[in-house]
Protein backbone atom coordinates (compact mmCIF):
# COMPACT_ATOMS: atom_id res chain seq x y z
CA UNK A 1 0.00 0.00 0.00
CA UNK A 2 1.21 3.45 -0.87
CA UNK A 3 1.56 5.89 2.02
CA UNK A 4 -1.35 8.15 2.95
CA UNK A 5 -1.03 11.74 1.77
CA UNK A 6 -4.18 13.30 3.18
CA UNK A 7 -6.75 11.98 5.58
CA UNK A 8 -9.77 13.49 7.28
CA UNK A 9 -11.56 12.14 10.32
CA UNK A 10 -14.93 13.40 11.55
CA UNK A 11 -14.73 16.57 9.49
CA UNK A 12 -17.70 18.89 10.06
CA UNK A 13 -18.42 22.31 8.56
CA UNK A 14 -21.22 24.63 9.62
CA UNK A 15 -22.84 27.54 7.85
CA UNK A 16 -24.40 29.33 10.76
CA UNK A 17 -26.39 26.68 12.56
CA UNK A 18 -26.67 24.40 9.57
CA UNK A 19 -24.20 21.57 9.19
CA UNK A 20 -23.11 21.46 5.55
CA UNK A 21 -20.62 18.61 6.06
CA UNK A 22 -21.12 15.97 8.69
CA UNK A 23 -18.34 13.68 9.96
CA UNK A 24 -16.69 13.15 6.63
CA UNK A 25 -13.75 10.77 6.53
CA UNK A 26 -11.77 10.44 3.31
CA UNK A 27 -8.28 9.20 2.57
CA UNK A 28 -5.96 9.92 -0.35
CA UNK A 29 -2.85 7.84 -0.98
CA UNK A 30 0.18 9.09 -2.82
CA UNK A 31 -0.07 8.89 -6.60
CA UNK A 32 -3.80 8.13 -6.60
CA UNK A 33 -6.75 9.84 -8.19
CA UNK A 34 -9.53 9.93 -5.64
CA UNK A 35 -12.89 11.32 -6.64
CA UNK A 36 -15.73 12.72 -4.55
CA UNK A 37 -18.98 12.63 -6.49
CA UNK A 38 -22.51 13.44 -5.54
CA UNK A 39 -25.46 15.56 -6.54
CA UNK A 40 -25.56 19.31 -6.34
CA UNK A 41 -25.68 20.66 -2.83
CA UNK A 42 -24.18 17.51 -1.34
CA UNK A 43 -21.31 19.55 0.13
CA UNK A 44 -18.49 18.75 -2.29
CA UNK A 45 -17.23 22.30 -2.73
CA UNK A 46 -17.60 22.90 1.00
CA UNK A 47 -15.36 19.89 1.64
CA UNK A 48 -12.61 21.25 -0.61
CA UNK A 49 -12.88 24.75 0.86
CA UNK A 50 -12.48 23.27 4.35
CA UNK A 51 -9.44 21.24 3.30
CA UNK A 52 -7.88 24.37 1.80
CA UNK A 53 -8.42 26.32 5.01
CA UNK A 54 -10.89 28.70 3.38
CA UNK A 55 -13.69 27.75 5.79
CA UNK A 56 -13.57 27.07 9.51
CA UNK A 57 -14.09 23.36 10.20
CA UNK A 58 -14.04 20.88 13.08
CA UNK A 59 -12.50 17.44 13.15
CA UNK A 60 -9.11 16.25 12.02
CA UNK A 61 -7.22 16.76 8.79
CA UNK A 62 -3.74 15.38 8.42
CA UNK A 63 -1.64 16.20 5.39
CA UNK A 64 1.80 14.68 4.96
CA UNK A 65 1.51 13.29 8.50
CA UNK A 66 0.96 16.72 9.98
CA UNK A 67 -2.25 17.94 11.57
CA UNK A 68 -3.14 21.01 9.51
CA UNK A 69 -6.69 21.95 10.43
CA UNK A 70 -6.79 25.45 11.92
CA UNK A 71 -3.02 25.62 12.24
CA UNK A 72 -1.86 26.29 8.69
CA UNK A 73 -3.04 29.28 6.67
CA UNK A 74 -3.95 29.02 3.00
CA UNK A 75 -0.58 30.28 1.85
CA UNK A 76 1.23 27.84 4.14
CA UNK A 77 -0.76 24.97 2.65
CA UNK A 78 0.00 26.15 -0.88
CA UNK A 79 3.67 26.27 0.06
CA UNK A 80 3.35 22.65 1.20
CA UNK A 81 2.03 21.61 -2.20
CA UNK A 82 -1.70 21.47 -1.48
CA UNK A 83 -3.26 23.40 -4.36
CA UNK A 84 -6.91 23.94 -5.26
CA UNK A 85 -8.38 24.65 -8.69
CA UNK A 86 -11.69 26.19 -7.64
CA UNK A 87 -15.06 25.67 -9.26
CA UNK A 88 -15.19 29.29 -10.39
CA UNK A 89 -11.60 29.13 -11.73
CA UNK A 90 -10.85 32.54 -10.09
CA UNK A 91 -8.48 33.68 -12.84
CA UNK A 92 -6.93 37.14 -13.00
CA UNK A 93 -9.15 38.28 -15.85
CA UNK A 94 -7.36 41.45 -16.97
CA UNK A 95 -3.88 39.90 -16.81
CA UNK A 96 -2.21 37.89 -19.56
CA UNK A 97 -2.18 34.11 -19.64
CA UNK A 98 1.58 34.20 -19.02
CA UNK A 99 1.18 36.43 -15.95
CA UNK A 100 -1.56 34.19 -14.59
CA UNK A 101 0.78 31.25 -14.90
CA UNK A 102 3.69 33.13 -13.36
CA UNK A 103 1.59 33.97 -10.30
CA UNK A 104 0.91 30.26 -9.89
CA UNK A 105 4.59 30.04 -8.92
CA UNK A 106 4.30 32.86 -6.36
CA UNK A 107 4.52 30.58 -3.31
CA UNK A 108 7.63 28.87 -4.72
CA UNK A 109 9.19 32.21 -5.57
CA UNK A 110 8.71 33.35 -1.99
CA UNK A 111 10.52 30.31 -0.65
CA UNK A 112 13.41 31.08 -2.98
CA UNK A 113 12.66 28.50 -5.67
CA UNK A 114 13.21 30.59 -8.80
CA UNK A 115 13.20 27.75 -11.30
CA UNK A 116 9.77 28.43 -12.73
CA UNK A 117 10.87 28.81 -16.35
CA UNK A 118 11.28 25.05 -16.54
CA UNK A 119 7.86 24.40 -14.99
CA UNK A 120 6.37 26.92 -17.39
CA UNK A 121 7.72 24.91 -20.35
CA UNK A 122 6.23 21.75 -18.85
CA UNK A 123 2.84 23.44 -18.44
CA UNK A 124 2.94 24.71 -22.01
CA UNK A 125 3.79 21.18 -23.14
CA UNK A 126 0.72 19.84 -21.34
CA UNK A 127 -1.54 22.66 -22.55
CA UNK A 128 -0.25 23.79 -25.96
CA UNK A 129 -3.32 26.01 -26.29
CA UNK A 130 -2.04 28.16 -23.44
CA UNK A 131 1.30 28.63 -25.16
CA UNK A 132 -0.51 29.90 -28.25
CA UNK A 133 -2.43 32.38 -26.16
CA UNK A 134 0.24 33.40 -23.69
CA UNK A 135 -0.15 37.13 -24.44
CA UNK A 136 -3.94 37.10 -24.45
CA UNK A 137 -5.92 38.40 -21.44
CA UNK A 138 -7.34 35.58 -19.34
CA UNK A 139 -10.79 37.18 -19.39
CA UNK A 140 -11.08 36.67 -23.14
CA UNK A 141 -10.51 32.89 -23.07
CA UNK A 142 -13.21 30.34 -23.80
CA UNK A 143 -14.64 28.12 -21.08
CA UNK A 144 -12.36 25.18 -21.83
CA UNK A 145 -9.27 27.38 -22.06
CA UNK A 146 -10.14 28.98 -18.75
CA UNK A 147 -10.21 25.58 -17.11
CA UNK A 148 -6.87 24.74 -18.71
CA UNK A 149 -5.39 27.99 -17.48
CA UNK A 150 -6.70 27.39 -13.98
CA UNK A 151 -5.12 23.94 -13.98
CA UNK A 152 -1.90 25.20 -15.54
CA UNK A 153 -1.66 27.97 -12.98
CA UNK A 154 -2.06 25.43 -10.19
CA UNK A 155 0.61 23.19 -11.73
CA UNK A 156 3.05 26.10 -11.64
CA UNK A 157 2.99 25.71 -7.86
CA UNK A 158 4.38 22.16 -8.27
CA UNK A 159 1.53 20.59 -6.30
CA UNK A 160 1.91 17.37 -4.34
CA UNK A 161 -1.87 17.07 -4.07
CA UNK A 162 -3.94 18.82 -6.70
CA UNK A 163 -7.59 19.37 -5.80
CA UNK A 164 -9.91 19.94 -8.76
CA UNK A 165 -13.40 21.28 -8.12
CA UNK A 166 -15.76 20.33 -10.95
CA UNK A 167 -13.33 20.72 -13.83
CA UNK A 168 -16.08 19.60 -16.23
CA UNK A 169 -18.47 22.34 -15.13
CA UNK A 170 -20.13 23.98 -18.11
CA UNK A 171 -17.78 22.33 -20.60
CA UNK A 172 -18.81 20.43 -23.73
CA UNK A 173 -18.24 16.64 -23.64
CA UNK A 174 -15.21 16.71 -25.94
CA UNK A 175 -13.41 19.21 -23.76
CA UNK A 176 -14.34 17.30 -20.63
CA UNK A 177 -12.71 14.28 -22.19
CA UNK A 178 -9.56 16.27 -22.91
CA UNK A 179 -9.41 17.62 -19.37
CA UNK A 180 -9.78 14.16 -17.88
CA UNK A 181 -7.10 12.77 -20.18
CA UNK A 182 -4.79 15.43 -18.73
CA UNK A 183 -5.79 14.48 -15.20
CA UNK A 184 -4.64 10.94 -15.93
CA UNK A 185 -1.46 12.30 -17.48
CA UNK A 186 -0.75 14.30 -14.31
CA UNK A 187 -1.17 11.18 -12.24
CA UNK A 188 1.47 9.59 -14.44
CA UNK A 189 3.76 12.51 -13.57
CA UNK A 190 3.39 11.68 -9.89
CA UNK A 191 0.80 14.26 -8.84
CA UNK A 192 -1.88 12.95 -6.48
CA UNK A 193 -5.33 14.20 -7.31
CA UNK A 194 -8.56 14.82 -5.45
CA UNK A 195 -11.23 15.20 -8.10
CA UNK A 196 -14.61 16.59 -7.12
CA UNK A 197 -17.19 16.01 -9.81
CA UNK A 198 -20.87 16.05 -10.44
CA UNK A 199 -20.26 14.30 -13.74
CA UNK A 200 -20.01 10.93 -11.99
CA UNK A 201 -19.38 8.60 -14.89
CA UNK A 202 -16.53 10.65 -16.24
CA UNK A 203 -14.93 10.92 -12.83
CA UNK A 204 -15.32 7.25 -12.01
CA UNK A 205 -13.67 6.26 -15.27
CA UNK A 206 -10.40 8.00 -14.38
CA UNK A 207 -10.34 7.59 -10.59
CA UNK A 208 -8.84 4.83 -8.45
CA UNK A 209 -11.14 5.25 -5.51
CA UNK A 210 -14.40 7.13 -4.99
CA UNK A 211 -16.65 8.56 -2.31
CA UNK A 212 -20.30 9.42 -2.93
CA UNK A 213 -21.33 12.43 -0.89
CA UNK A 214 -25.00 12.88 -0.12
CA UNK A 215 -26.48 15.55 2.15
CA UNK A 216 -23.07 16.32 3.61
CA UNK A 217 -22.09 12.77 4.54
CA UNK A 218 -20.31 9.96 2.78
CA UNK A 219 -23.12 7.67 1.59
CA UNK A 220 -21.04 5.10 -0.30
CA UNK A 221 -17.32 4.53 -0.82
CA UNK A 222 -15.58 1.96 -2.91
CA UNK A 223 -13.12 1.47 -5.70
CA UNK A 224 -14.11 3.60 -8.67
CA UNK A 225 -14.49 0.56 -10.90
CA UNK A 226 -17.00 -1.01 -8.54
CA UNK A 227 -19.04 2.17 -8.19
CA UNK A 228 -19.26 2.71 -11.93
CA UNK A 229 -22.10 0.21 -12.19
CA UNK A 230 -23.56 0.64 -8.72
CA UNK A 231 -27.29 1.57 -9.04
CA UNK A 232 -27.12 3.52 -5.80
CA UNK A 233 -25.09 6.21 -7.59
CA UNK A 234 -27.79 6.77 -10.19
CA UNK A 235 -30.41 6.83 -7.47
CA UNK A 236 -28.66 9.50 -5.47
CA UNK A 237 -28.62 11.70 -8.57
CA UNK A 238 -31.95 11.28 -10.29
CA UNK A 239 -34.18 9.99 -7.54
CA UNK A 240 -35.23 6.97 -9.55
CA UNK A 241 -35.39 4.83 -6.45
CA UNK A 242 -38.77 6.23 -5.57
CA UNK A 243 -38.63 4.46 -2.23
CA UNK A 244 -38.93 7.73 -0.33
CA UNK A 245 -40.74 9.85 -2.83
CA UNK A 246 -42.14 13.02 -1.34
CA UNK A 247 -45.48 13.87 -2.83
CA UNK A 248 -47.90 11.52 -4.43
Amino acid at each position, binding site marked *: MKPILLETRGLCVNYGRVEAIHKVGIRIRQGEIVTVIGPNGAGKTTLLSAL*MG*LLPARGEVSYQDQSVL*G*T*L*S*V*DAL*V*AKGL*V*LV*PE*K*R*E*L*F*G*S*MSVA*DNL*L*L*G*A*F*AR*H*RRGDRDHAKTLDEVYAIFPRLAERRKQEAGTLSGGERQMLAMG*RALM*AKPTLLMLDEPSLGLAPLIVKEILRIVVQLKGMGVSILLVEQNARAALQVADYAYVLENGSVAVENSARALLHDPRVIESYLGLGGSHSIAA
Partner: protein
Amino acid sequence: MDSAVALLLAQDGFTNGAIYALLSLALVLVFAVTRVIFIPQGEYVAYGALTMAAVVTGQLPPTMWLVVTLGIAVAIVDGVVAVREGAKSRLPLIIVKNAVLPIAAMVVVRLLPLKELSYPLQVLVALAFVVPLGPQVYRLAFQPVAEASVLLLLIVSVAVHFMMVGMGLYFFGAEGARIPPFTEGGLTLGATFIQYQTIWIVGIAALLIAGLALFFEHSIYGKALRATAINRTGARLMGISADLAGKLCFTLAALVGAFSGILIAPITTVYYDTGFLIGLKGFVGAIIGGLVSYPLAAAGSILVGLLESYSSFYASAYKEVIVFTLIIPVLLYQSLTTKHVDDEDEH
Protein backbone atom coordinates in the same frame (compact mmCIF):
# COMPACT_ATOMS: atom_id res chain seq x y z
CA MET B 1 -3.09 88.22 -15.64
CA ASP B 2 -0.09 88.43 -17.94
CA SER B 3 1.63 85.42 -19.42
CA ALA B 4 4.49 85.53 -16.88
CA VAL B 5 2.04 85.17 -14.00
CA ALA B 6 0.14 82.49 -15.88
CA LEU B 7 3.35 80.53 -16.38
CA LEU B 8 4.29 80.95 -12.76
CA LEU B 9 0.90 79.65 -11.68
CA ALA B 10 1.17 76.75 -14.10
CA GLN B 11 4.55 75.90 -12.63
CA ASP B 12 3.04 75.93 -9.14
CA GLY B 13 0.11 73.87 -10.35
CA PHE B 14 2.30 71.23 -11.92
CA THR B 15 4.54 71.01 -8.88
CA ASN B 16 1.65 70.45 -6.50
CA GLY B 17 -0.15 68.33 -9.08
CA ALA B 18 2.86 66.02 -9.28
CA ILE B 19 2.70 65.47 -5.52
CA TYR B 20 -1.06 64.91 -5.62
CA ALA B 21 -0.52 62.46 -8.46
CA LEU B 22 1.93 60.44 -6.38
CA LEU B 23 -0.50 60.35 -3.47
CA SER B 24 -3.46 59.50 -5.66
CA LEU B 25 -1.58 56.51 -7.10
CA ALA B 26 -0.89 55.26 -3.59
CA LEU B 27 -4.54 55.78 -2.67
CA VAL B 28 -5.80 53.88 -5.71
CA LEU B 29 -3.33 51.08 -4.98
CA VAL B 30 -4.36 50.77 -1.34
CA PHE B 31 -8.05 50.84 -2.22
CA ALA B 32 -7.76 48.35 -5.07
CA VAL B 33 -5.81 45.83 -3.01
CA THR B 34 -7.29 46.21 0.48
CA ARG B 35 -10.54 48.17 -0.09
CA VAL B 36 -9.29 50.67 2.50
CA ILE B 37 -9.97 54.31 1.69
CA PHE B 38 -6.72 55.53 3.17
CA ILE B 39 -7.55 58.86 4.79
CA PRO B 40 -4.25 58.95 6.80
CA GLN B 41 -2.21 59.04 3.57
CA GLY B 42 -1.58 62.74 4.15
CA GLU B 43 -0.24 62.16 7.65
CA TYR B 44 2.68 60.26 6.14
CA VAL B 45 3.44 63.38 4.11
CA ALA B 46 3.57 65.51 7.26
CA TYR B 47 5.48 62.87 9.23
CA GLY B 48 8.02 62.53 6.41
CA ALA B 49 8.56 66.26 6.07
CA LEU B 50 8.77 66.98 9.79
CA THR B 51 10.98 64.00 10.57
CA MET B 52 13.32 65.14 7.82
CA ALA B 53 13.23 68.65 9.28
CA ALA B 54 14.32 67.22 12.63
CA VAL B 55 17.10 65.13 11.09
CA VAL B 56 18.67 68.01 9.11
CA THR B 57 18.92 70.04 12.30
CA GLY B 58 20.64 67.13 14.02
CA GLN B 59 17.71 66.03 16.22
CA LEU B 60 16.74 62.42 16.62
CA PRO B 61 13.70 61.41 14.55
CA PRO B 62 10.75 62.18 16.87
CA THR B 63 8.79 59.22 15.50
CA MET B 64 11.36 56.63 16.56
CA TRP B 65 9.61 55.77 19.81
CA LEU B 66 6.37 55.29 17.90
CA VAL B 67 8.05 52.91 15.46
CA VAL B 68 9.54 50.95 18.36
CA THR B 69 6.26 50.86 20.34
CA LEU B 70 4.20 49.76 17.36
CA GLY B 71 6.92 47.25 16.46
CA ILE B 72 6.66 45.67 19.89
CA ALA B 73 2.86 45.68 19.60
CA VAL B 74 3.07 43.91 16.23
CA ALA B 75 5.50 41.37 17.70
CA ILE B 76 3.06 40.65 20.53
CA VAL B 77 0.03 40.32 18.23
CA ASP B 78 1.87 38.14 15.71
CA GLY B 79 3.46 36.16 18.54
CA VAL B 80 0.10 35.37 20.10
CA VAL B 81 -1.23 34.21 16.72
CA ALA B 82 1.85 32.03 16.17
CA VAL B 83 1.51 30.40 19.60
CA ARG B 84 -2.20 29.82 19.07
CA GLU B 85 -1.48 28.13 15.74
CA GLY B 86 1.14 25.97 17.36
CA ALA B 87 3.99 27.46 15.36
CA LYS B 88 6.34 28.54 18.14
CA SER B 89 9.27 28.13 15.78
CA ARG B 90 8.24 31.37 14.11
CA LEU B 91 8.61 33.36 17.35
CA PRO B 92 12.30 34.32 17.10
CA LEU B 93 11.88 35.71 13.60
CA ILE B 94 8.74 37.62 14.60
CA ILE B 95 10.51 39.21 17.55
CA VAL B 96 13.66 40.08 15.64
CA LYS B 97 11.87 41.49 12.63
CA ASN B 98 9.30 43.58 14.48
CA ALA B 99 10.85 44.54 17.80
CA VAL B 100 14.63 44.03 17.77
CA LEU B 101 15.18 45.66 14.40
CA PRO B 102 13.51 49.00 15.26
CA ILE B 103 15.32 49.08 18.62
CA ALA B 104 18.61 48.42 16.86
CA ALA B 105 17.83 51.17 14.36
CA MET B 106 17.11 53.52 17.23
CA VAL B 107 20.47 52.73 18.81
CA VAL B 108 22.32 53.19 15.54
CA VAL B 109 20.68 56.52 14.82
CA ARG B 110 21.75 57.81 18.23
CA LEU B 111 25.35 57.10 17.30
CA LEU B 112 25.13 58.83 13.94
CA PRO B 113 26.25 62.45 13.54
CA LEU B 114 22.89 63.28 11.93
CA LYS B 115 23.66 66.90 11.14
CA GLU B 116 26.85 66.08 9.31
CA LEU B 117 25.39 63.29 7.18
CA SER B 118 25.02 63.86 3.47
CA TYR B 119 21.57 64.92 2.30
CA PRO B 120 20.64 61.56 0.73
CA LEU B 121 21.63 59.74 3.93
CA GLN B 122 19.51 62.13 5.97
CA VAL B 123 16.60 61.32 3.67
CA LEU B 124 17.20 57.62 4.28
CA VAL B 125 17.24 58.10 8.06
CA ALA B 126 13.97 60.06 7.93
CA LEU B 127 12.33 57.43 5.73
CA ALA B 128 13.58 54.63 8.00
CA PHE B 129 11.57 56.07 10.88
CA VAL B 130 8.38 56.87 8.98
CA VAL B 131 7.88 54.15 6.37
CA PRO B 132 7.64 51.25 8.90
CA LEU B 133 4.55 52.99 10.25
CA GLY B 134 2.81 51.87 7.04
CA PRO B 135 2.91 48.09 7.55
CA GLN B 136 2.61 48.53 11.32
CA VAL B 137 -0.62 50.48 10.96
CA TYR B 138 -1.92 47.87 8.54
CA ARG B 139 -1.11 45.01 10.88
CA LEU B 140 -2.64 46.59 13.97
CA ALA B 141 -5.61 48.56 12.67
CA PHE B 142 -6.68 46.96 9.39
CA GLN B 143 -5.58 43.33 9.21
CA PRO B 144 -7.92 42.18 12.02
CA VAL B 145 -10.91 43.54 10.07
CA ALA B 146 -9.58 42.95 6.56
CA GLU B 147 -12.77 41.15 5.51
CA ALA B 148 -15.13 43.84 6.81
CA SER B 149 -17.18 46.21 4.66
CA VAL B 150 -15.66 49.20 2.89
CA LEU B 151 -17.65 51.40 5.23
CA LEU B 152 -16.19 49.88 8.39
CA LEU B 153 -12.68 50.04 6.95
CA LEU B 154 -13.31 53.70 6.14
CA ILE B 155 -14.30 54.46 9.72
CA VAL B 156 -11.17 52.68 11.01
CA SER B 157 -9.20 54.72 8.49
CA VAL B 158 -10.62 57.97 9.83
CA ALA B 159 -9.88 56.85 13.38
CA VAL B 160 -6.25 56.19 12.42
CA HIS B 161 -6.11 59.64 10.84
CA PHE B 162 -7.37 61.19 14.09
CA MET B 163 -4.74 59.32 16.09
CA MET B 164 -1.90 60.18 13.76
CA VAL B 165 -2.77 63.89 13.76
CA GLY B 166 -3.03 63.86 17.55
CA MET B 167 0.34 62.17 17.89
CA GLY B 168 1.80 64.43 15.21
CA LEU B 169 1.13 67.44 17.42
CA TYR B 170 2.91 65.70 20.28
CA PHE B 171 5.95 64.68 18.23
CA PHE B 172 6.47 67.76 16.12
CA GLY B 173 4.73 70.54 18.09
CA ALA B 174 2.46 73.17 16.64
CA GLU B 175 5.34 74.94 14.85
CA GLY B 176 5.73 74.35 11.16
CA ALA B 177 9.04 73.52 9.55
CA ARG B 178 10.86 73.84 6.26
CA ILE B 179 13.92 72.01 5.04
CA PRO B 180 16.68 73.24 2.73
CA PRO B 181 16.09 72.52 -0.97
CA PHE B 182 17.92 69.67 -2.64
CA THR B 183 19.70 72.27 -4.75
CA GLU B 184 19.67 76.01 -4.05
CA GLY B 185 18.70 78.51 -6.70
CA GLY B 186 17.01 78.07 -10.01
CA LEU B 187 17.16 78.98 -13.63
CA THR B 188 15.55 81.63 -15.76
CA LEU B 189 13.66 80.37 -18.72
CA GLY B 190 12.44 83.19 -20.88
CA ALA B 191 10.30 85.35 -18.62
CA THR B 192 9.96 82.88 -15.77
CA PHE B 193 12.22 81.81 -13.01
CA ILE B 194 12.11 78.12 -12.15
CA GLN B 195 13.46 76.92 -8.84
CA TYR B 196 15.65 73.85 -9.00
CA GLN B 197 13.49 72.28 -6.30
CA THR B 198 10.50 72.48 -8.65
CA ILE B 199 12.46 70.52 -11.22
CA TRP B 200 13.47 68.02 -8.54
CA ILE B 201 9.87 67.55 -7.47
CA VAL B 202 8.45 67.02 -10.94
CA GLY B 203 11.43 64.90 -11.97
CA ILE B 204 11.44 62.65 -8.92
CA ALA B 205 7.66 62.33 -8.99
CA ALA B 206 7.87 61.23 -12.62
CA LEU B 207 10.66 58.79 -11.75
CA LEU B 208 8.70 57.36 -8.84
CA ILE B 209 5.62 56.94 -11.00
CA ALA B 210 7.71 55.21 -13.65
CA GLY B 211 9.26 53.04 -10.94
CA LEU B 212 5.84 52.05 -9.64
CA ALA B 213 4.72 51.23 -13.17
CA LEU B 214 7.78 49.03 -13.68
CA PHE B 215 7.16 47.35 -10.34
CA PHE B 216 3.55 46.52 -11.24
CA GLU B 217 4.31 45.43 -14.79
CA HIS B 218 7.48 43.45 -14.31
CA SER B 219 8.08 42.19 -10.78
CA ILE B 220 6.29 39.17 -9.40
CA TYR B 221 5.38 41.06 -6.20
CA GLY B 222 3.91 43.90 -8.23
CA LYS B 223 1.94 41.41 -10.27
CA ALA B 224 0.81 39.71 -7.08
CA LEU B 225 -0.60 43.03 -5.85
CA ARG B 226 -2.44 43.54 -9.13
CA ALA B 227 -3.74 39.99 -8.96
CA THR B 228 -5.06 40.58 -5.45
CA ALA B 229 -6.87 43.68 -6.65
CA ILE B 230 -8.41 41.74 -9.55
CA ASN B 231 -9.39 38.56 -7.72
CA ARG B 232 -8.83 38.23 -4.00
CA THR B 233 -9.81 34.55 -3.80
CA GLY B 234 -7.72 33.60 -6.80
CA ALA B 235 -4.70 35.34 -5.31
CA ARG B 236 -5.22 33.66 -1.98
CA LEU B 237 -5.31 30.24 -3.64
CA MET B 238 -1.94 30.98 -5.24
CA GLY B 239 -0.45 31.59 -1.81
CA ILE B 240 -0.59 35.38 -2.06
CA SER B 241 -1.96 36.08 1.38
CA ALA B 242 -4.12 39.12 1.94
CA ASP B 243 -1.90 40.04 4.89
CA LEU B 244 1.21 40.11 2.75
CA ALA B 245 -0.48 42.11 0.00
CA GLY B 246 -1.90 44.54 2.57
CA LYS B 247 1.43 45.11 4.27
CA LEU B 248 3.18 45.51 0.96
CA CYS B 249 0.87 48.18 -0.37
CA PHE B 250 0.75 50.03 2.95
CA THR B 251 4.54 50.09 2.88
CA LEU B 252 4.44 51.56 -0.61
CA ALA B 253 1.81 54.09 0.44
CA ALA B 254 3.88 55.16 3.45
CA LEU B 255 7.00 55.42 1.30
CA VAL B 256 5.24 57.50 -1.34
CA GLY B 257 3.69 59.69 1.36
CA ALA B 258 6.87 60.29 3.34
CA PHE B 259 8.92 60.94 0.23
CA SER B 260 6.31 63.42 -1.02
CA GLY B 261 6.64 65.23 2.29
CA ILE B 262 10.41 65.47 1.90
CA LEU B 263 9.95 66.77 -1.65
CA ILE B 264 7.58 69.59 -0.75
CA ALA B 265 9.05 70.65 2.58
CA PRO B 266 11.65 72.91 0.89
CA ILE B 267 8.99 74.97 -0.92
CA THR B 268 6.21 75.10 1.63
CA THR B 269 6.04 75.16 5.41
CA VAL B 270 4.66 71.89 6.70
CA TYR B 271 2.72 71.68 9.96
CA TYR B 272 1.69 68.56 11.85
CA ASP B 273 -1.79 68.75 10.32
CA THR B 274 -0.86 69.96 6.85
CA GLY B 275 -0.92 66.47 5.44
CA PHE B 276 -4.64 66.00 5.70
CA LEU B 277 -5.55 68.60 3.09
CA ILE B 278 -2.73 67.48 0.80
CA GLY B 279 -3.88 63.89 1.08
CA LEU B 280 -7.47 64.87 0.40
CA LYS B 281 -6.44 66.65 -2.78
CA GLY B 282 -4.78 63.43 -3.83
CA PHE B 283 -8.16 61.89 -3.11
CA VAL B 284 -9.93 64.28 -5.41
CA GLY B 285 -7.53 63.10 -8.10
CA ALA B 286 -8.14 59.47 -7.18
CA ILE B 287 -11.91 59.98 -7.28
CA ILE B 288 -11.59 61.49 -10.75
CA GLY B 289 -10.07 58.13 -11.63
CA GLY B 290 -13.06 56.43 -10.01
CA LEU B 291 -10.67 55.00 -7.37
CA VAL B 292 -9.63 52.36 -9.93
CA SER B 293 -7.75 53.95 -12.84
CA TYR B 294 -4.10 54.91 -12.26
CA PRO B 295 -3.62 57.12 -15.35
CA LEU B 296 -6.91 58.96 -14.80
CA ALA B 297 -6.03 59.48 -11.13
CA ALA B 298 -2.66 60.98 -12.09
CA ALA B 299 -4.19 63.21 -14.74
CA GLY B 300 -6.95 64.25 -12.32
CA SER B 301 -4.34 65.18 -9.72
CA ILE B 302 -2.50 67.46 -12.15
CA LEU B 303 -5.85 69.08 -12.88
CA VAL B 304 -6.39 69.57 -9.15
CA GLY B 305 -2.95 71.17 -8.84
CA LEU B 306 -3.60 73.58 -11.71
CA LEU B 307 -7.10 74.44 -10.53
CA GLU B 308 -5.78 75.15 -7.05
CA SER B 309 -2.98 77.30 -8.32
CA TYR B 310 -5.17 79.45 -10.57
CA SER B 311 -7.96 79.76 -8.05
CA SER B 312 -5.48 80.90 -5.41
CA PHE B 313 -4.74 83.78 -7.75
CA TYR B 314 -8.33 84.73 -8.46
CA ALA B 315 -10.07 83.87 -5.20
CA SER B 316 -7.48 82.76 -2.72
CA ALA B 317 -9.90 82.57 0.20
CA TYR B 318 -12.01 80.07 -1.69
CA LYS B 319 -9.33 77.94 -3.26
CA GLU B 320 -10.11 74.92 -1.05
CA VAL B 321 -13.80 75.31 -1.73
CA ILE B 322 -13.16 75.41 -5.47
CA VAL B 323 -10.85 72.38 -5.40
CA PHE B 324 -13.21 70.23 -3.36
CA THR B 325 -16.24 71.30 -5.34
CA LEU B 326 -14.49 69.84 -8.37
CA ILE B 327 -15.50 66.38 -7.26
CA ILE B 328 -19.18 67.26 -7.56
CA PRO B 329 -19.32 67.33 -11.37
CA VAL B 330 -17.00 64.32 -11.41
CA LEU B 331 -19.23 62.32 -9.11
CA LEU B 332 -22.30 63.52 -10.99
CA TYR B 333 -20.82 62.26 -14.25
CA GLN B 334 -19.91 58.91 -12.68
CA SER B 335 -23.31 58.70 -11.08
CA LEU B 336 -25.15 59.26 -14.34
CA THR B 337 -23.01 56.79 -16.26
CA THR B 338 -23.09 54.02 -13.63
CA LYS B 339 -25.91 51.65 -14.38
CA HIS B 340 -26.47 49.63 -11.28
CA VAL B 341 -24.79 49.29 -7.92
CA ASP B 342 -25.02 46.05 -6.06
CA ASP B 343 -21.79 45.96 -4.14
CA GLU B 344 -23.24 46.02 -0.68
CA ASP B 345 -25.33 42.88 -0.76
CA GLU B 346 -24.74 41.23 2.55
CA HIS B 347 -23.29 37.76 2.70
